[in-house]
């Protein structure tokens, strides 16, 4: 079975691009529109990887990661941040919260797929 990825972004167009890139690469994609929705999706299923935006309404990406690291089922899920921020303080916070990787928007869909492959070890 192909790996299952949760993508979290409040921008529909970014979600679409991510979905196109990753599902063409053969991954199963589930989408969430913000951190809150992301947690809800996490509660409902298992994922091999999470690709998330940072700055979102309702719950931001950092908070979501911190929450998810508290959930026994998802403690070890790798997380890639896909975000406009290139603020280093943010990166440090993200790394501290348990992020595995970082890709700055605008991104090249191919490089996203590469990073995902790398993280998933395929």
């Amino acid at each position, binding site marked *: 079975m192909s790996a299952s990825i949760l993508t979290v972004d*409040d*921008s*529909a*167009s*970014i979600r*679409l*691009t991510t*979905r*196109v890139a990753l*599902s063409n690469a053969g991954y199963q994609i589930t989408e969430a*529109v913000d951190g809150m*929705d992301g947690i809800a999706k996490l509660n409902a299923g298992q994922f091999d990887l999470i690709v998330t935006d940072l*700055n*979102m*309404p309702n719950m931001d990406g950092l908070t979501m990661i911190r929450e998810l690291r508290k959930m026994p089922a998802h403690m070890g899920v790798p997380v890639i941040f896909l*975000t*406009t921020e*290139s603020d*280093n*303080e943010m*990166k*440090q916070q993200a*790394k501290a919260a348990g992020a595995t*990787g*970082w890709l*700055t*928007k*605008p*991104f090249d869909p191919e*490089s996203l797929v*590469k*990073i*995902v*492959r*790398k993280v998933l070890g395929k």
Partner: protein
Amino acid sequence: MSFPDPIAVFRTEAAELLEQIEAGLLDLNVNLGDKDQIDAVFRGLHTLKGSGAMFGFEALAAFTHHCETAFDRVRKGEVPATQALVTAVLEAKDHMRALVETPAGDHEATSEALLANLRAAVDGAKSPGVHQAADVPAQTLFKIRFSLPQNAMANGTNPLPLLDELRELGECTIVADRSAIPSLDLLSPTDLHISWNVELLTSQPRSAIEDVFIFVMDDMQLEITAVQAATAAAKSPERQETPIQAAEPVAAEPVAVSAPRVPAPVTAAPAPTDAKASKASENVRVPAEKLDELMDRVGELVIAQSRLSQLAGGSGDLQLRAVSEDVERLSGELRDTMMVLRMVPVTQLFGRFRRLVHDLSHETGKVIELVTEGESTEVDKSVIERLADPLVHLVRNSCDHGLETPDERRAAGKPPAGRIMLSARQQAGEVIITIKDDGRGINRERVRAKAEASGLVQPNATLSDQELYQLIFQPGFSTAQQVTNLSGRGVGMDVVKRTIDALRGTINVISHPGEGSEISLAIPLTLAIIDGLLVRVGAGRYVIPLSAVEECLELSIEEDMRSRGRSFISLRDSLVPFLRLRDLFRTGTKPDPFQKVVVISTGSERVGLVVDQIIGDHQTVIKAMSKLHHDVATFSGATILGDGDVALILDVGHLVAEGQQQEAHLRAAG
């Protein structure tokens, strides 16, 4: 698997974001300290920038970046939110829309002007001297040398963004060290052989540079050496003060200029449905034309179903009848669900008026408060689209002609701020949208004089208020003595009337001199399928929209004879004019012995229609009439009956007007 066009998705998203940003800015304008709105505006700008850059809208991304930066500073408390800033970003927002719509256009000059405006607003907002220190920081020259593992690129690391990030930190000289590149026969194209030497002059600490490499640090080699602390003197207070003072007069000026314009506060009640509105964007998005297509199919189904019902009704087959009843119930439910799908709340429609009123209050120098009510009222999507223009016109009219200037208002003993109330509510099968202002009201004498001058009314004719007010919707009618930018060109009100007519709606005007006026638009909830009353006149069958039907009466032969010559029936002590559809349609056949009167109304006016037979109610799928029949006023459309025949749909508004006219004629004749 097929995906929608991401650019199209981005455009839709951008339109939504811009709307969100605008709503946030307008709320901020009322309450400058609203932290949630500041965050929301920042987030909107942030997402717009990010997605814009993603899909090649570079000019948009670059431009939005500046607004985002300004709001980031507001968010972090470095700069207070001011009305000048909000106004500057509002103007910038319009420009962003242009950048989304025509990314290839020549926008540079406008961008520059708006950004200068924004900078002035930000600088003007800065409290002098407080946060300036950050602007003239000490700079350090770092020498950085780094190399990535040979397999870095194969593993998805791209060194170029790292270099870009270094460039963002300060002045940067980057030299690639290509010495490690092997000869061609040994070169593997996926390996990375280059390392980099970078000289970076930055005010950031060393840790900032380390952070650039945070995700690749584990496998790479990185040396950072601080060469010199370049401008330590910058910390001395003397150096700090000079640039501030130089900046200040420049910054203060534009604020002073715009200050008298700004205080016109547009207080708009924050939409209570905000949360709901933003929730709505989580829904599945379907192109409107697909909905229309589906609606057409449902329409066809309803027609086929009524044919089935007719067949089943005519046969003695009980099983067939049972199935037919099921199909009838299901298609009715399907129709209702379909209707709901097409319904959208008027929030969006009302939302744009906050901006309009904000702009108008600037343009006219009037202080205008916009209050909206019933934003969650839902109306068919296509109705909303077509209502936008007429409403804009009516609101402009209220701002321009209705409301007085603050001085005039004070003199009249009213509060200086004029008030426009925009409300929506559902009533039976109609949505009523009301635009109400507390201005000077419609000047009856002036309307009258103008109407007489342009030959619309005879000088001695008696007109009711309602009739008089309806004159303002005549083509070429305008009482404005001075044509302004906004209205008064005499085009518009007739267009409003035409649009509302086309929507099968009615306009009602109430006005009290000195107290204000109120214009109500009553629009049927949907355009595609209506409940109709099927009647027969002579050999032809016709549909009367059920929403307009008040009651049905029998017209006995005696009463028919008695009423010959005059066309009134007495209905519970009031006289109602009636039209003999047999005469109107020149049927030529013998009338049924017991004719019926269907009383229809458009709110305040009533008229009876004499028909031969009332067949019953009928789910009417409205089909537009061909261009050839465009001018036929008596009918608003056609429908296909169960047996495949075509029935025409009577235009209620027109018939009522005709009935009333006939009444007026007879009265005038004595």
